[in-house]
């Protein structure tokens, strides 16, 4: 009797083990299913309009088939350009502060705030950019969109810069200082140069995320059906086009929304490839 109970417990434990472990395996499979579904539909539906026109022509008026989104592609690039132009220096310099001088209470506070800031919804950042840039200027502009994207990038870049600089072995720094190089030159030309690859990856992550943002652009950069590269005027972006075209009751607009999504994903991938190429190791 005694032995049977023991055996039962043993088999029950064995069975629970197998069941729970296979459940976690199945869950892992389920998790990546949406990923493949999203990719599958984006490629399948997006391929319809993926031709040279899409990259070279402007959107056509309602009811007229064809056309492309060259203005939105250029607009997205301009927007992340402005965002990066403001966000990268601010993020990198504050990250350098955190790693080089941030071992005090103020450093801990900034580190914590940067973490908290990365959790602020992008649409709230959009509202701030609206009150900050659009209200004083009295009209929507690419600049406002760029400012919103910059604010979104800063926490990612700050924290990656800090983490990457911390990974540089301390002996590099000591070697620099032992040669009589001043501290700031050691930081900039030895430590930062060594950490550059990792930092570039962080910057890329920030830029890629910015390229995919829609919410903060809706009422800052607004969108534009015409060609415009003026940063003080509303500007088109791929994401806003996807949003507007997906809501529209026209079949060809919906299809173009899929194409825009495909192009957006391709743009983000190309961006990462370019960065990988630039930052690849020379040794």
């Amino acid at each position, binding site marked *: 009797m005694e032995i049977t109970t023991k055996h039962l417990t043993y088999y029950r434990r064995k069975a629970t083990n197998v069941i729970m472990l296979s459940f976690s395996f199945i869950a892992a499979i389920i998790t990546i299913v949406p990923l493949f579904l999203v990719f599958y539909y984006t490629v399948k539906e997006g391929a319809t309009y993926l031709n040279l026109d899409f990259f070279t022509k402007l959107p056509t008026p309602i009811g007229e088939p064809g056309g492309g989104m060259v203005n939105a592609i250029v607009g997205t690039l301009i927007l992340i350009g402005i965002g990066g132009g403001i966000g990268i220096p601010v993020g990198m*310099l504050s990250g350098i502060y955190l790693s080089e001088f941030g071992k005090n209470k103020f450093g801990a506070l900034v580190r914590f705030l940067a973490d908290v800031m990365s959790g602020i919804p992008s649409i709230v950042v959009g509202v701030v950019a609206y009150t900050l840039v659009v209200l004083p200027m009295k009209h929507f502009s690419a600049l406002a969109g760029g400012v919103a994207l910059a604010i979104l990038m800063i926490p990612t870049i700050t924290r990656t810069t800090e983490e990457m600089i911390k990974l540089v072995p301390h002996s590099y720094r000591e070697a620099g200082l032992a040669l009589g190089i001043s501290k700031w030159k050691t930081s900039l030309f030895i430590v930062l140069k060594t950490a550059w690859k990792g930092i570039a990856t962080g910057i890329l992550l920030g830029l890629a995320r910015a390229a*995919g943002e829609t919410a903060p652009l809706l009422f800052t950069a607004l969108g534009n059906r015409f060609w415009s590269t003026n940063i003080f005027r509303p500007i088109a972006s791929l994401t806003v086009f996807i949003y507007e075209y997906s809501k529209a009751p026209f079949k060809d607009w919906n299809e173009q929304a899929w194409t825009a999504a495909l192009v957006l*994903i391709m743009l983000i991938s190309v961006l990462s490839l370019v960065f990988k190429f630039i930052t690849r190791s020379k040794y």
Partner: protein
Amino acid sequence: MTNAKVFQISRFLKTIEVELVNIRESPAEIQNFFKKSDEKKRSRFLKKILGDKNLGDIVFERLTLLFAVLVFLLVLFMAWEMYSNSELSINKFGWKFLITTTWDPYAENFSALPMIFGTIVSSLLALIIAVPLGLSVAIFLAELAPAWLEKPLSFLTELLAAIPSVVYGLWGIFVLVPWLRDVVEPFLQNQFPNSPFFQGAPYGYDMLAGGVILSIMVLPIISSISRDVLKSVPDPLREAAYGLGATKWEVTKTVFTNARSGILGAIILGFGRAVGETMAVVMVIGSRPQITASILKPASTIAGALANEFSEASSDLYLSALIELALILFVITIIINIFARLLVWGTERRWK
């Protein structure tokens, strides 16, 4: 004060005096001061203001400090900017903004409650779906998967987070919503005909669709942070459990118990993300500010209302009510994030 110190200070003051007299008497010297070949004088003066440090070091430290302060001020500035721009609505509605249930732009009667309700319910729905799945994935990645499977699988789950939310929304409109409308929702209504949660015609654009799409978006966060937390639990704990004859699942349970506050942090971070998520939700949730028990009816979230109505706000009061909505969302997410970060930090530090 010792005599030496007094002497030092008086000497220092004297140098300054001499400099001032020099400057007053010959203004051209100011411009040439740093260029002048009087090395001894120059280095003495610089040493007086800089102490032992190099000028470049000081500039470098101050410059980076300036930007760190900028990041610090940015958060405060954001809160202040939204507060000052929503004063009109704060003064008019006061606390009623959080309690009453109508959002009516035509009558200019605004209340955030329906949106707060929609935000929280859709986020909770997302957690109900994403937490069991996300934690299972985390367990699989941290405890079970062989190395050759772990890397690509982690990469794929993180790729989920890299897809822009508007693309999820697009997919939601054309794939998820029709599927929910034609398959899932009729099924739920047949199974639970009397449940108050599944009332109303299945339309597809509703709270359920919002919750499902959100769950896909928060899954990567929950699974990757929990995986890191589980991995930070030291191996001797696992070895001890194996040594006592535990099965793999029992070992996992032990590890899990020891990491629970960090995992709670991961879940709360996921919740914070769901609360602030905008595009994917606004595209599928139906955008109607109402409070109902049924998850098959359209709803609206704070972020969704902002995305929909902000550029159409016709009056100053309307605009300031929307900015107050943004302020509420800001405060909610800040609180959630602070809480979650503290939990995750606490667990990870515990094992260091």
